[in-house]
C-alpha cells in the first residue's frame, strides 16, 4: 500500500478541534451582534458625540453645538464637590457601592455557607425568599421598603422600639444607610446563588481531607473554601460593583435626598440629563462613569487572566 503524504509533517497546522466551524459560529453570533450593534454600540457612539456638545433637550440649544471638552471640565468645576455636584455624587456613590458590595458579598456568602450541603424545605423557603427580593419588580418593592423604613409605622422601627433601640428616622437622618440596606437586601440573592453554586462545585473531599488532617471549620474556610471560590468572588465583586454603580433603584426610596445625601451617580445623571434636559453634561457624565466601569472591568480581566496559567487539573 502506498502511503501518499499530504505534506511534510509540521507544515500543516490544523486548527484545534472546533465543534463549530468558523462560518457556523459567525452565523450563531450574528443575531446577537446585530442587536448589540443596533442598541448598544450605536447609542454609545451617539453618547460619545453628544458629550462634546452643549445640546439640550429643549430650548435654544436643542441643536448641536460643539464645545470640546468643556462638559468634562464642568463636571469637576468648583461646585462639583458641594452637595448636588458630580464630585460629591461620586463620593456618595463610592461609599454606597463599597458598603453594598461588602454587605452583599458577606451576606450572600454567609447564606451560601450556612446552607452548604443542606437540603430540605427550609433551604427552599429561605432561598426563594432571598431570590424573590432580587427579581421582584423594583417599584412595588420600593413601596414595601418605604413602608418598612417609615419612622412611625414602619416595621423596622416597630421592632427596634420593641427592643428599646429607639426609632431612627431612616430616610431623613440615615438616608445613605437606608439605601445601602435596601441595595444589600435587593442584591444579596445574586451572590448567594453564585456562591452556593461555587461551594457545590468544591469536591466535598477537599473539606473532608482538611478535617481529617486536623483543621477546624474556621481554618477550613480560609485554607480551602476561600481559595477555591476565588474566581467566583472576583466575578461577584465585579458584577455587583458594575450593577451597584449604575443602579437607579434607590431613587424610589430617597429620590437622591435629603440634601443630596443619596445623590448617587445614576440619580445625578438622571437629574442632569432627564430633568434639566442638559444632554451635553449628562452624556459627559455617562462617559466618565463608563470609563470608571471600564477600569473595573480591566482589573477583572487582568485578575482572571493571572490565575489561568496555574489553574489546577
Amino acid at each position, binding site marked *: 500500500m502506498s502511503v501518499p503524504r499530504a505534506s511534510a509533517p509540521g507544515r500543516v497546522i490544523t486548527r484545534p478541534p472546533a465543534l463549530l466551524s468558523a462560518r457556523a459560529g459567525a452565523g450563531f453570533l450574528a443575531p446577537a451582534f446585530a442587536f448589540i450593534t443596533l442598541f448598544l454600540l450605536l447609542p454609545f457612539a451617539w453618547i460619545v458625540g453628544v458629550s462634546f456638545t452643549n445640546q439640550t433637550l429643549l430650548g435654544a440649544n436643542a441643536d448641536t453645538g460643539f464645545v470640546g471638552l468643556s462638559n468634562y471640565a464642568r463636571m469637576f468645576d468648583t461646585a462639583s464637590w458641594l452637595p448636588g455636584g458630580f464630585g460629591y455624587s461620586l463620593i456618595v456613590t463610592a461609599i454606597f457601592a463599597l458598603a453594598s458590595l461588602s454587605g452583599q458579598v458577606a451576606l450572600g456568602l454567609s447564606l451560601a455557607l450556612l446552607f452548604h450541603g443542606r437540603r430540605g424545605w427550609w433551604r427552599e423557603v429561605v432561598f426563594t425568599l432571598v431570590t424573590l427580593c432580587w427579581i421582584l419588580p423594583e417599584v412595588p418593592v420600593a413601596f414595601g421598603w418605604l413602608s418598612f423604613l417609615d419612622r412611625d409605622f414602619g416595621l423596622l422601627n416597630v421592632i427596634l422600639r420593641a427592643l428599646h433601640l429607639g426609632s431612627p428616622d431612616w430616610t431623613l437622618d440615615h438616608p445613605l444607610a437606608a439605601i445601602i440596606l435596601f441595595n444589600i437586601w435587593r442584591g444579596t440573592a445574586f451572590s448567594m446563588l453564585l456562591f452556593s453554586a461555587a461551594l457545590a462545585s468544591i*469536591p466535598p473531599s477537599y473539606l*473532608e481531607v482538611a478535617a481529617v488532617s486536623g483543621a*477546624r471549620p474556621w481554618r477550613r474556610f480560609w485554607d480551602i473554601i476561600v481559595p477555591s471560590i476565588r474566581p467566583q468572588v472576583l466575578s461577584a465583586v465585579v458584577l455587583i460593583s458594575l450593577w451597584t454603580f449604575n443602579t437607579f433603584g434607590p431613587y424610589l426610596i430617597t429620590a437622591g435626598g435629603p440634601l443630596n445625601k443619596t445623590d448617587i451617580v445614576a440619580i445625578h445623571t438622571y437629574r442632569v440629563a432627564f430633568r434639566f434636559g442638559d444632554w451635553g453634561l449628562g452624556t459627559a457624565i455617562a462617559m466618565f462613569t463608563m470609563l470608571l466601569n471600564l477600569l473595573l472591568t480591566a482589573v477583572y480581566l487582568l485578575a482572571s487572566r493571572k490565575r489561568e496559567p496555574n489553574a489546577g487539573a
Partner: protein
Amino acid sequence: MAQLTLSGIEKRFNNTLAVKDLSLDIKDGEFFALLGPSGCGKTTTMRMIAGLEAPSAGQIHIGEREVTALPPADRNVGMVFQDYALYPHMSVRDNIGYPLKVRGVRGSNYTERISAVAEQLQLGALLERRPGQLSGGQQQRVAVSRAVVHHADVFLFDEPLSNLDAKLRLEARAFLKRLQRELKMTVVYVTHDQVEAMALADRMAVMQGGVVQQVGAPLEVYRRPATTFVASFIGNPPMNLLPVTLERAGRWRCGDAQLTPDTPRPELVGRTLTLGLRPEHLLLDPAGELSGEVMAVEPLGVETILMLSVAGETVAVRLPGEAEPPSSGTLRLRPEWSRAVLFDEEGARL
C-alpha cells in the same frame, strides 16, 4: 500506630441501612482490606472511622481511646481519598504539609518532615509543582505523603488506585505494600478490586449490602468462601456455581449429568444445593462427567479462558496459555472434587 476496633456499628441514611451491625478487630500494624461491590457500604464504614460520618449505633475505638463522638480533627487518622483531593491552589509541598500546618508545625521542622516523606516517596523533585502538573501516579503518591506526613494512628485508603491505569496500578500496589511494612502502619484499605485486596491484605472483609460476609486471610477466603456471594465475587473469572441435586449418597445430579463425588454426604440426600468449583478446578477430560458447549475462547497469553454452557449455566474453565481449545463444539469436564465447595439453599457454605 494502634489497633482499631469497631463494635456493632451501624449507619442509617434516611431509609437505607448502609452498614449493619459491623464488628471488626484490626490489629496494630495490620493491612486490612474492605472488599465488596459498589454500594455495599465500604466507603461509609471508612468515613465512620475517620469521623466524617456519625454512626447510628455502635462504638469505635482507636487503641484504648473511644473516638465514636470525636470530630475528625481529633482522631489522629490519615486518609487517602479516591479522588486524592489534592488542593489545586497549593504546591505539592504545601499539600503534603497541610496536616502539619494546621497543627502549628512551622519553620525547619515543617520543611524537614516534608522532605523526609517526599524523599521516601520519590517526590523530592516535584515539591514546587502544582497537583495539576503531575501524572496520576505522582498524584497518588502526593496524596499518600499527605496522609503519612503526620504520625497518625490509623491510615485509611479509599480505592486509592482505581484511577490509575493497569501498569501504574501494579507498581503502586507494590509500593504501598512496602511502605506499610516499613512504617508498620495500621491500614484499612477499601477496594472493589479483589486482585488488589488479595495482593495487599493481611486479612480482608468481604461486604455485601452493608453486611460483612466473611473475614479472613486472602487465601482462606479464596479457597473456602463463606457464601455463594463471596464465591462469585472473588477470583477472576469467579468460582463457577452449579445447581446439584443429591439424589442418593454419592450420586448427585447436575442438569443431565450424573456426578460421583469423593465424599458421598449421605446426610444431605434429597436437597438441591450449589456446587462451587473454581475455573482451575474443572479439567478438560474426555471421560469427564460434565459436558458443556463452547461459547467463547479468550487467549490471555499466560492462560486461556474457556467459556462453556453447562446445564444452562455459564462456566469458565482456566487452561494454560498454550492450550488451543476448539472454539466451538462440546467438551467434557471433570471436577477436581477435593477442591469443590458445597453451599446450602441460602448460599452458606456447608
